């Protein structure tokens, strides 16, 4: 699906086909520019990121300048213009998690996955590792979330263990 988006678009027929999902989402939201944020959230749920071509298409469909759509897409932390891995590991770096050593978890996981400075996603697109400001699970500090599953009271060893389990599962799949 992602590769389909990145291909150049020739005919209008092909364009409509490629953006079928996007059209569905736009219709569901009544093509209302006020619903831009929910629209982008649903698009991102579909593609796991916001492809540039889709942003332009959304802008045209809503009758707003592409700059506004791009502005919103880059303003909010949840939107990403880069594809993310299949497993998104979010490490909470809220105050409570920070004082309980969340950065040690980050280091351990990045080391296990071989992620260098400034690199968030593994080359095989399996993992994206990022920090978030607060998950609101402070009672469980330090906390970590993999996709939708929350893991609490982590240690670097336990965190790497979670990653190992996923790697093992993926290898056997």
């Amino acid at each position, binding site marked *: 699906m992602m590769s389909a988006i990145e291909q150049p678009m020739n005919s209008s027929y092909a364009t409509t086909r490629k953006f079928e999902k996007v059209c569905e989402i736009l219709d569901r939201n009544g093509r209302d520019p006020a619903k831009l944020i929910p629209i982008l959230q649903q698009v991102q749920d579909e593609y796991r990121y916001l492809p540039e071509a889709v942003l332009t298409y959304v802008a045209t469909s809503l009758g707003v300048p592409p700059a506004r759509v791009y502005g*919103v897409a880059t*303003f*909010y932390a949840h939107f990403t213009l880069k594809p993310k891995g299949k497993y998104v590991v979010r490490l909470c770096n809220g*105050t409570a998690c920070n*004082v*309980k050593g969340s950065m040690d978890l980050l280091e351990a996981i990045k080391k296990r996955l071989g992620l260098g400075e400034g690199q968030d996603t593994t080359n095989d697109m399996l993992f994206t590792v990022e920090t978030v*400001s607060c998950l609101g699970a402070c*009672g*469980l500090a330090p906390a970590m979330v993999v996709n939708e599953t929350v893991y*609490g009271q982590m240690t670097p060893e336990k965190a790497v263990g979670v990653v190992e389990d996923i790697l093992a599962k993926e290898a056997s799949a």
Partner: protein
Amino acid sequence: MTPPVTTLEQTAAAYKQASEKAARRVVICGGTGCIANGALNVFEAFVEQVATAGLEAAVVLNEHTDHGSVLISMSGCQGFCQMGPLVTVEPDGILYTRVRPEDVAEIVEATLVRGEVVDRLLYVDPVEHTHCRGTAEIPFYQRQTRTVLAGCGVMDPEDIREYIANDGYVAARRAFTELKPETICEEITLSGIRGRGGGGFPTGRKWELTRIQPEGKKYVICNGDEGDPGAFMDRSVMEGAPHRVIEGMMIAARAIGADEGYIYVRAEYPLAVARMKKAVADAQAMGILGDDVFGTGLKLDLHVMEGAGAFVCGEETALIASIEGHRGMPSPKPPFPAQSGLWGKPTVINNVETLATIPLILNMGAAEFRRRGTEKSPGTKTFALTGHVANTGLIEVPFGTTLREIIFDIGGGITRKDGSIDPDGFKAVQIGGPSGGCLTEEHLDLPLDFDSLRGVGAMVGSGGLVAMNRNTCMVAMARFFMQFTQNESCGKCVLCREGTKQMLALLDDIVEGRADQGTLDILEKLAVAVQKGSLCGLGKTAPNPVLSTLRHFRAEYEAHVFQKRCPAGKCKALLTPEICAELCKGCGLCLRTCPVGAISGERKQPHVIDAAKCIKCGACVAACKFNAISGATS
């Protein structure tokens, strides 16, 4: 189509009748914390084991069928997150902590069948080492006054009937059918309730300002964009008592004459989003929300909107921009949202906890509400107690409670890194997150309320309380918050955008040993400039953590700046590890760990570190099993 006014009573009676059929009720905490600890598996294990034991069980109460003797349900956050998953058995009043699915068979056999207590799953007081049977005996709960949180953790948040059976929506119905809008505003003003989101603005005044605007389209917004790192009160209330939030919004809507509302919830809170959505749909289905609220012909529609990850959207004007589909940037006030808010219409924005308190005020009356708390800050406040305390979790206490009671009586004292209690470990508490300040030993007996905290350079904020032990570096802490606000600054005001960046760079200089007297001077000047030159609360309060740590821990800053030393031994660039000869067993672990070969020594003899070779990486400190290597220079 519209259900008659008596529906609430009928629903309540039917629910009570059905629930009385169950001899026992097992409540499994379904807050985010306990679910992360495996509460869902515990729930399933209960359903399975109860059936295996030959007991009849019900998961959903149904008035029409005769069902089993045990009712199994989930609840919202019970607050004691660290000890989760929590399981309560009523009416026995037993609270089991850290329940694993494999423990369930024993609980069913012992408690549900034989009526006995499983001692090993009870909470053990870390100081007295006694087993506590239930919440009544646990100090964490004993010292609290749970009013807003009363239903959280007991009721099933996904069952509107249980809320109604506990006097739910009675206040909203009164507001719609008996009270005039101005009477409601008056009552709320009399109660003296102040906004729980941080600012502490009187809620009644906010409503009255919106009510007196010309009639026409008006909006009510529930601000659930709780962004303070280290705070989760609003999440817990939305997850645990979604109907109470809706009821508060209904009363607000009636008071100002709004017929539409938005509940703006942080995207990081998927469970809160799901529960609020279900609650709105259930209320609509019962005719409580919709085109004909309680048969009055008045309309009220509520929408749940998910945020997209921007701390600044907690600011009301930024939140409005976000609902309108724009970047969440604040705008100057006036005009206030009360005059021109969402789509230019008069709008009331209240925080989740404030709204959840409103039904209580209408039910108990303003005078009764004022009996708790202090003169200028009546009522109770929820706090998220986290960090280095024995009991972390969600608490509720009256305003005017002292920090000592919270940290030592409820929190159970300060802990070391390994979790053991350190009687002299207290260093500071950060209150109000990145907008607040720190409180120190001298503030332990200060009664906490909006005004007393402002007086010492801190603020209630939304209620995050992060306790820090003596091994915490306050400069690193201030830097952490500055990094947060710098990252979250929306970029509109130059002083906030550039000022926070420069302040962060100055703090980096301090923790990395490049600072001098000039750094401290510029840092202080810049802090004041950022406060003055920013439009919204984010920028205005961003320098607070720096200013308050400078005020209370100046010596710590000076140690970093002049002696290039971190007293807490946390700032890696300033570390010069030293081996304590008395503690060193000569095991050689540090010698093998050191990446630059700076450590030498004979086996079973104390080792030494060559300061000239040491790159201060801290690997030896982490490796030593005998705590013989200290990070800080003496």
